């Protein structure tokens, strides 16, 4: 049983300087409930792969299945929620109004929307902030609101493209803890793009190391860490060994240059 199944996925952009191989022969399968991080230097195709899963890009080769469907069909079936690097909240809508936005677009009833908004706000610990406007919230809280928005329509898959990239270290730590708690509670399958090794190791059950030119997977590391992870797990030898392995993988990728 797999949620995301990629075999031989390639994506070539035609540019003025000739073709750019953003992805080449990517094989990967992700099981339900996994937390998968994609890590690699810029240009390695990690974001492109995530966007392909979301049908925001179309692979030029290979097959990609999301919940057994074409990515496009999966999107229409509300298979995933996508969290972008910036919260992208609308300043003219309150936090509740912003979370309500995809629900309105998808045609949920008013009562259903209210119930879902309350539930996901609780999940990201924003209860009581529904009436606030985005500018009244800190960057971290805004990003939590955007995660709530992605969760509101009950997609099984949560795709996150460097969601904490614009936040400071302390806020990131807190959000990472909260995200792990949320993941344990909801059992969602999460695809998470990052360029931080500790972030990838701390969060993931599976770490996909990628390298550029052409964008490809160089190593897939299964985490040996327990699902319950306090922040100080980062000081354990197990954590350090995993981080070392990821770093090796990244270095391997660069050896091809």
């Amino acid at each position: 049983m797999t949620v995301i199944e990629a075999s031989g996925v390639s994506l070539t952009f035609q540019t003025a300087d000739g073709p750019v191989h953003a992805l080449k022969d990517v094989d990967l399968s992700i099981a339900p409930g996994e937390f998968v991080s994609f890590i690699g230097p810029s240009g390695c195709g990690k974001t492109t792969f995530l966007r392909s899963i979301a049908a925001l890009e179309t692979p030029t080769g290979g097959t990609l299945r999301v919940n057994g469907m074409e990515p496009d069909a999966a999107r229409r079936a509300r298979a995933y929620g996508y969290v972008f690097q910036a919260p992208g909240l609308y300043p003219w809508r309150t936090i509740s109004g912003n979370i309500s936005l995809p629900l309105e677009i998808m045609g949920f009833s008013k009562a259903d929307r209210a119930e879902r908004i309350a539930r996901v706000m609780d999940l990201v610990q924003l209860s009581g902030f529904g009436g606030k406007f985005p500018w009244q919230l800190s960057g971290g809280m805004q990003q939590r609101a955007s995660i709530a928005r992605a969760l509101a329509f009950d997609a099984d898959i949560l795709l996150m493209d460097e969601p904490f990239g614009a936040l400071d270290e302390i806020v990131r730590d807190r959000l990472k803890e909260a995200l792990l708690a949320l993941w344990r509670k909801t059992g969602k399958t999460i695809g998470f793009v990052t360029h931080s090794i500790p972030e990838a190791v701390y969060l993931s059950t599976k770490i996909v190391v990628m390298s550029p030119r052409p964008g490809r997977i160089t190593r897939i590391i299964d985490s040996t860490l327990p699902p319950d992870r306090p922040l100080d797990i980062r000081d354990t030898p197990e954590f350090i060994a995993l981080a070392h392995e990821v770093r090796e993988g990244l270095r391997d990728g660069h050896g091809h240059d």
Partner: protein
Amino acid sequence: MRSAKGCATVTAMTKGRLVPVLTVLMVIVAVWYLAAIRMNAQWERDQAARAEVTLTLPDLVARTLVQERPVLPAPHQVAVGLWEGLAGQAITSRRSLVWHAWVTLSATLAGFAIGTGAGILLAVGIVHSRSMDQSVMPWAVASQTVPILAIAPMVIVVLSSMGITGLLPKAIIAAWLSFFPVLVGMVKGLRTPDAMQLDQMRSWSASDAQVFWRLRLPSSLPYLFASLKVAIAAALVGTIVGELPAGATAGLGARLLSGSYYGQTVQIWSALFVAALLAAGLVAIVGWLERRTLDRMGLAR
């Protein structure tokens, strides 16, 4: 506490602004008086020469400021003309500037509404259709390069030959001038959502209509309001130009024209000032709506 502080800030601001504003105003008035004396002096000298009297300088100056048909009326003459036009007549009278201003204002507002509607609709088309993007814009630009003074009489004559007279032909000329800033502003405004915001919408499988109503239109409002300020002033200019040809008898434009026929410069200047006040008032109203709306939407920046 807070309101007291607010009051203090307002007073400080008005105090800070009042002095320079009054200074500039006084300089303008002074220059105006000097120009009036200089420009009207020749006629007085000619009159004096004909009557074979010599004028002392104080006499000359005094006479230049009370002429009936001066080349340039003095500020106080315009002020009197304005006052009589605005307050000295029943507002239904043909001599009332209030009545003429209303005639102009109604056509301006109608033209502004038509122009704004047309500008927004064309912008929506341009943003959503590639072929419209390439075909409409050059024509819109071309329409604005034709001098409105050349177009206006043709519009009036053609429409009146079709039996359409009164407010509508003027409104169409006003719309001709006012749709363009709205079109340009809205094309820019409807395209402000960035790639991420559009991807977000796609990730929710939103339709074009949903993207338009929920994202593009609200995002475009700061641009719309900026355009509306230009458009409403342009609509007023268009209306006045539309009132000039073909013997219009009502409106500020007609007032300007009859003033120039009969050498009634005070009348011309009074009408000009009413037009300026009208424009300032209209732009201020749009500006107030802008602040109110954008503040409420969290877009005021």
